[in-house]
């Protein structure tokens, strides 16, 4: 069975999981379905020859599900159903359906699955990384060479994103935001 078929099966499974996550009335099952999708993504990364990503994805996944369950579900498992009004719902569905159809049409103009753009654009930076990465950076793991040398600045940005979001979360969870009381309305 080719990678493409495996991925189609995997993606169908993830899509089903997503539908369950979206439509179930139980928040706990919703979060667990999200976890299943995450694990599915991680497995897909393995099949797509991205072991770094598979490791990161699965560990981030575990942490995120722990957060979601401990932080929110533990508080309130009342079944939730509501959604926006039917008229708005119809508009959203039509819009997304249109987008879906156009997307399916548009994907024909990029290379077929399994034929990446770097195979046809020889000047693409990726080919340079694959060819000279070891020699220029000394790292045998080309992905590490890309994230920490060729595109190291991105990684600085990424570390900053993590820093800012943790700082933001701590800020939001302060006991008291306003020091001056009483003069507010």
């Amino acid at each position, binding site marked *: 069975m080719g990678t493409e078929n495996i991925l189609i099966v995997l993606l169908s499974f993830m899509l089903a999981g997503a539908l369950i996550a979206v439509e179930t009335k139980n928040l706990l099952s919703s979060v667990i379905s999200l976890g299943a999708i995450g694990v599915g993504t991680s497995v897909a990364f393995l099949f797509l020859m991205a072991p770094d990503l598979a490791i990161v994805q699965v*560990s981030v996944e*575990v942490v995120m599900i722990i957060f979601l369950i401990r932080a929110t579900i533990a508080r309130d498992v009342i079944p939730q159903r509501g959604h926006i009004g039917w008229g708005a719902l119809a508009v959203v569905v039509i819009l997304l359906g249109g987008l879906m159809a156009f997307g399916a049409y548009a994907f024909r103009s990029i290379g077929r699955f399994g034929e990446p753009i770097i195979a046809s654009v020889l000047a693409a930076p990726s080919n340079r990384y694959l060819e000279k990465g070891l020699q220029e*950076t000394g790292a045998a793991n080309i992905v590490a060479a890309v994230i920490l040398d060729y595109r190291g600045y991105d990684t600085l940005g990424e570390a900053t994103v993590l820093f800012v979001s943790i700082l933001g979360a*701590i800020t939001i*969870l302060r006991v008291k935001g306003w020091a001056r009381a009483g003069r507010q309305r």
Partner: protein
Amino acid sequence: MKGMSVIVKTVTRWIKVFIFLYGVYIVITGHLTPGGGFAGGVIIACSYILLTLAYGKEFALQRLSPRTTAGLDSGGALLFLVAALYGIGYGGIFFVNFLQKRYPGRAFQLASAGIIPICNIAIGLKVGASLFLVFIILSVLRITKEKDGKQSMVKRWPEGKEEE
């Protein structure tokens, strides 16, 4: 939170060390094998999260206080920034891999690839610290509903005290 049963605690005590070491291994060999600072950092954080889940927060917080964690978080980020800025001193270029340019190590050795391993360690430190921090603040602290504008007893994690 009192922690879990004796069995879980015993298993955790043994496994924790291995998870931690595995994380460290992934960080320091990130430039040779799959993994790297992020993956390793998350795994290191997981070892502490496991400890917290099994033993309760007091035990874990004794080992690693939130203030230390926050310091490590900032420290890791600073180390990375300094490694990037150091390049300005060397040839005047932001983010240049100055070590590799000066001392190109032998490929496939642990000591190779210039600043990449250093950056990996900085990131591992940062990611591990910040994930553990966010885990503590998101799930260990206890929050109750606020009703009728009156807040009932709120227990916060230790850093809550620092906020005046």
